[in-house]
């Protein structure tokens, strides 16, 4: 018996009237939308993340900023990055919530050599399965956002799960629930793109940020975490790559060139085998004289062999 909650019901036996929820369509792709323009840097999302995922509060490095620590860590998946910028000669504080972007084309997954260590759900969440992780760290190199982090003790890599355990139960991620200003949103991808676009338009037309826009980079086919930025042309100011790319090592090389190399090795084995079968061995010389294979000699040889 399957769990009726995971399926859309079409018909119910002996049920009078219409089936509840009949014809309902649910978009599968989820998305987190972060409006950096309304973030106040309170770090409630950081606390919520640590709490929900049951991480201990780890030691930090103080580096003269308001940031909790220099970068996300294997057990600290959500970090507000504080960048001090300038606007019209005044300080402009850029606060951006940094976490896994849940790319549509995930570099970590492309790079991973271990079967089943990284999976991407249909809803767009990219999740690490530490049971299958071999600790090679290729995902770290494959990620354009410097998100996966290695744990020296367990020799495994960890990162934000987009609270897949909560989302699977129909709840929003923990960080979303904790945000006091409403700068964090969660919903379907198309809804979030729409809200983000509206906000960007408002920033452009009302708030005087002529270059405001939505960060949903197409170089990795979009992400399941999107931002509205004051200036979409310089995402580097927020610590975001303008054109995030997966190294070709984990795309063309790994998935095209390497299988060809393997095939060549296999052909090489076949080649030496058939070389031996067709060309024959190199015997120390002198070897016994070979029988000439002209027609007359063959007859001669045949005559000699039959008693």
């Amino acid at each position, binding site marked *: 018996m399957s769990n009726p909650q995971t399926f859309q019901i079409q018909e119910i036996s002996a049920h009078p009237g219409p089936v509840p929820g009949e014809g309902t369509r649910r978009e599968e792709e989820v998305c987190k939308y972060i409006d950096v323009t309304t973030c106040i840097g309170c770090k409630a999302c950081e606390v919520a993340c640590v709490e929900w995922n049951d991480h201990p509060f780890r030691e930090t490095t103080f580096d003269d900023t308001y940031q909790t620590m220099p970068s996300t860590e294997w057990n600290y998946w959500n970090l507000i990055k504080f960048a001090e910028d300038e606007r019209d000669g005044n300080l402009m504080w850029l606060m951006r919530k940094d976490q896994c972007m849940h790319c549509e084309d995930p570099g970590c997954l492309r790079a991973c050599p271990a079967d089943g260590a990284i999976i991407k759900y249909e809803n767009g969440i990219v999740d690490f399965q530490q049971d299958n992780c*071999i*600790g*090679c760290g290729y995902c770290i190199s494959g990620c354009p956002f410097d998100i996966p982090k290695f744990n020296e003790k367990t020799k495994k890599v960890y990162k934000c799960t987009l609270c897949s355990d909560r989302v699977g139960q129909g709840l929003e991620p923990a960080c979303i629930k904790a945000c006091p200003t409403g700068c964090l949103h969660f919903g379907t991808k198309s809804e979030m793109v729409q809200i983000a676009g509206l906000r960007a338009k408002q920033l452009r037309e009302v708030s005087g940020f002529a270059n405001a826009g939505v960060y949903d980079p197409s170089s990795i086919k979009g992400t399941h975490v999107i931002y509205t930025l004051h200036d979409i042309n310089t995402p580097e100011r927020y610590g975001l790559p303008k054109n995030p790319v997966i*190294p070709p090592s984990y795309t063309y090389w790994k998935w095209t060139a390497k*299988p060809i190399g393997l095939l060549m090795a296999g052909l090489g084995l076949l080649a*030496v085998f058939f070389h031996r079968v067709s060309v024959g061995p190199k015997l120390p*010389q*002198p070897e016994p004289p070979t029988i000439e294979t002209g027609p007359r000699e063959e007859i001669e040889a045949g005559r000699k062999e039959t008693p």
Partner: protein
Amino acid sequence: MSSPANSFDEKARGEFAQLGKTRIHRGELLRHPVYTRFLHWSVAIFFILSLLTGFAIYSPWLFRWIAPLCGGGARTRALHPWFSLVFLVFFFFQFINWVAPMAWTAADRRWLGRLKQYATNEDRLEAEEVGFFNGGQKLYFLAIVLSGVLFLITGLLMWFDNVVGRWVVAVSYVVHDLAALLMLAGLIIHIYEGTAHQPGTFRSVIDGTVTEKWAWTHHPAWYRAVTGRDPRQAYERERRRQVERERVIESWEREQDEREKLNK
């Protein structure tokens, strides 16, 4: 390369000769002493272990087959660099042992020119100038040295990826694979030449000896160096002896047959 026998790692060879021994029968020559054999197999074992654990990580199509053999993916990953380091240590000593006789000469360049005849078995006797190692063996040695260095550098970069950038790791990943493919191509040819293609060769790394026939066929200049005899004359003499032997046996058999007929 006037006297290759003098340019090996003689000190280590002397010490190892105390630990093991090589029995050389009549008609045989000492090819690889105990020390060289020990190094060869130490290098071989750890190379195969590195290759196996590396192959598991090399391709998703191999992971599910090979990783379980090495104790699972995580253990495969943990063992691979250590197997490889031991391989490199042993190969370092093999490098010291062999660096002099592996020196590239004009004779090796000419050997490469005859590669086609070599591969098609057209040259049944190697050219007289071919010494302890031929050009192909030297190329394989060079390939191991080159890929060994590449393996070490790129391997360390990927191992300690927390101190280098992601693009350094990504480039190392490709170079490491290229080194592996180069090494693998050499290995396939090496094993084939040493076993199936050239009968009488494999015993040189097991028993340490080869027959004189083998020596003047495949490494004539080395044969001349260790025996002081001319390889071509030795070959001619053996050929005449073979013909003579067959002739004598045949006439003896005919004699026997006729005697049997008379007795009936």
